[in-house]
């Protein structure tokens, strides 16, 4: 064994997985996990913990793995995270815990994410669940949204003795974990549903099909249903479009629509009653993780897939691992390319997308080099489906129906670090506050708000 390198992880063969929705990464075996755990230097001042938005005691759990005490490892992770099986799969560890790992200076960082995943999967397989020994304190908290921030906030509050009810607008619980992230990255029944069961086991109540701001307002929750505090974790669900000609043609979808049909409504399964349009040739516009998810979904449904992104490879916002997987599976990247028009046939269906070549100019406000159009470089890609993956913004349904809840210019709810908003007793966190970000940052915000709510209600 080369101690400088990670124990390699098994993955489905790219050619095989390009045609199915099974998970790409197959995870460590017990032996592999123990071997990988032995690479941890157990630093006195563990930088990895600082890199974790929910501050998991990483060296402690890895030590337990090394000792083959997997239950012990699970208990340590559970103290800090409500969703370890999810985080082990979708966290950008390379820029967080693993990005800080001392091993990474000369060799490869310890595979912390894959170890976390191993421990969580082992706990599922062995029927080990988080335990709760706390007396109810009689105070009620409403959590709006059952995505990562809501689940983590609800879990933490339940552990503190609160009577917590989670409200979800859709028919299934999990938020972006069920409608956004595809099955092949995050299995729904085997992982997401089980994580939610664990939160339920802490005594958290769940009510679906409730749209806060429509079915019931925050004022009504607090005044009529006697909730002492409210946490808003409603995410960033509104899709953006480019505003170019032809964008309303049949066959143009937001990544949200495409992924919701496939993930939440199971349209990838031919038995599903919800349809999805599978093109012969699909163009995905955008370079983030959601774009990669949409592209890899279209590919698996049987389409040829092109990703169009206006900057270069170095600026792709998606995780390196996702881009690598997408390329392995046969997705073609058209970088430094920007759409200018969607072309439609006489029946209003997409027949192509007109693009222009870009080159990188001076750095812009984001610090990235600004893409500039190359004059006269227009060209057309023939295609029958276009998926717009340009980011999302928070849904104004709640902010527009809650007096005293202020938002900023990007429609994000204004909240302090402890989640407190401009309205008393109302806290917020996750994408609803930051705009579209990651699962783990939302979880971190949910935890912080749980602490904030606890302090507020303990006064």
């Amino acid at each position, binding site marked *: 064994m080369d101690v400088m390198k990670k124990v390699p992880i098994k993955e489905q063969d790219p050619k095989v997985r390009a045609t199915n929705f099974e998970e790409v990464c197959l995870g460590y075996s017990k032996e592999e996990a123990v071997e990988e755990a032995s690479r941890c230097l157990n630093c006195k001042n563990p930088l990895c913990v600082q890199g974790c938005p929910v501050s998991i005691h990483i060296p402690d759990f890895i030590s337990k793995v090394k000792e083959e005490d997997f239950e012990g490892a699970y208990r340590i992770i559970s103290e800090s995270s409500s969703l370890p099986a999810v985080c082990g799969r979708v966290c950008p560890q390379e820029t967080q815990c693993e990005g800080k790992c001392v091993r990474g200076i000369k060799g490869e960082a310890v595979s912390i994410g894959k170890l976390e995943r191993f421990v969580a999967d082992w706990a599922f397989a062995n029927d080990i669940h988080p335990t709760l020994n706390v007396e109810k304190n009689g105070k009620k908290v409403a959590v709006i949204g059952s995505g990562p921030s809501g689940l983590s906030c609800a879990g933490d509050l339940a552990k503190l003795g609160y009577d917590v009810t989670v409200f979800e607008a859709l028919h299934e619980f999990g938020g972006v974990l069920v409608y956004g992230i595809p099955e092949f990255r995050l299995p729904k029944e085997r992982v997401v549903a089980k994580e939610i069961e664990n939160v339920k086991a802490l005594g958290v109540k769940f009510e679906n099909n409730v749209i806060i701001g429509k079915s*019931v307002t925050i004022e009504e929750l607090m005044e009529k249903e006697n909730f002492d505090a409210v946490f808003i974790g409603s995410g960033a669900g*509104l899709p953006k479009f480019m505003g170019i000609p032809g964008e*309303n043609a*049949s066959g143009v979808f937001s990544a949200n*629509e495409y992924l919701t049909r496939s993930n939440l409504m199971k*349209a990838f399964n031919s038995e599903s009653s919800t349809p999805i349009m*599978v093109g012969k040739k699909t163009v995905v516009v955008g370079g983030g993780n959601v774009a990669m998810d949409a592209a890899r979904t279209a590919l698996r449904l049987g389409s040829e897939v092109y990703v169009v992104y206006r900057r270069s490879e170095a600026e792709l916002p998606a995780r390196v691992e996702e881009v690598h997987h997408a390329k392995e599976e046969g997705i073609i990247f058209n970088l430094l390319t920007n759409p200018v028009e969607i072309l439609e046939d006489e029946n209003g269906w997409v027949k192509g997308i007109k693009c222009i070549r870009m080159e990188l100019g001076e750095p812009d406000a984001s610090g990235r080099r600004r893409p500039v159009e190359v004059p006269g470089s227009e060209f057309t890609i023939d295609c029958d489906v276009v998926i717009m993956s340009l980011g999302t913004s928070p849904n104004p349904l709640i902010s527009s129906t809650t007096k005293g809840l202020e938002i900023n210019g990007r429609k994000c709810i204004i909240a302090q670090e402890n989640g407190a908003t401009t309205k008393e007793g109302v806290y917020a966190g996750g994408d609803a506050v930051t705009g579209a970000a990651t699962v783990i940052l939302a979880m971190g915000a949910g935890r912080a708000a749980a602490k904030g709510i606890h302090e507020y209600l303990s006064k």
Partner: protein
Amino acid sequence: MYKILKAEKLAENIFEWEVEAPRVASNCEPGQFVIVRAFEDSERIPLTICDYDREKGSITIVVQVIGEGTYKMTSLKAGDAFHDFVGPLGKASEFVEEDVESLKNKKFLFVAGGLGTAPVYPQVKWMHEHGIDVDVIVGAKTKDLVIMEEEMKAVAGNLYITTDDGSYGRSGMVTKVVEDLYAEGKTYDICVTIGPMIMMKFVCLLTKKLGLHTIVSMNPIMVDGTGMCGACRLQVGDEIKFACVDGPEFDGHLVDFDQAMKRQQMYKTKEGRAYLAAKEGDTHHGGCGQCGGDK
């Protein structure tokens, strides 16, 4: 689960259910809609609210069988339950927010076509409850497809029924009745029209000529109904609007109906289905809910 209090067949292929949904009933207003899933594996179907009873905590919906999803729904009887029932979604009709006294000074004309009679009903009922008499035109293909006549009669000022084939009431399309009413010397300040998109388009073309401000209720394809997917986007004037959160009611003179009807075909109509199957060829994954499994 959302218990069904009443289930009734109103006409060939048109069914009505009264469903227990207290959260929806306590906050809904005319013009809003719900999304239902009949069973655990059903697609999400948006339906305009046809009546509500705040005390009973119930919502009434009327559904026309147009595909596999709505066909399966018809097996649900009183005592059964809808698996999912969420709402109220969308914005309430504009007049709900207006001052009742000023509404009394305006003359409203409601134009309903076919199934559109059902969502027009709660609006007319609201007007009636607020002491405002409105004129209502109800159009149907033929006598047997006229629905909710008694209910409508009880709340409308004047009710004009027309059938395309002349088998009941006046004869001809709803647009003809509008023209006739104007010819008879009537005038209106606001028209609200709900029905098939093609009908709303022609009503709007006429009312534009008449200079009659017209509100339409759009029913494009939707998935979540909360602004998330953008499937329901419409060109309204020079803006793109989402029917689910910006609507479903819009100024009919600004809506691009031709585009909306093309988008509607993506999955919904027979033509759209055939087109989709032809386009997708072997990659058609079925499950469109419309093709009956034979793709």
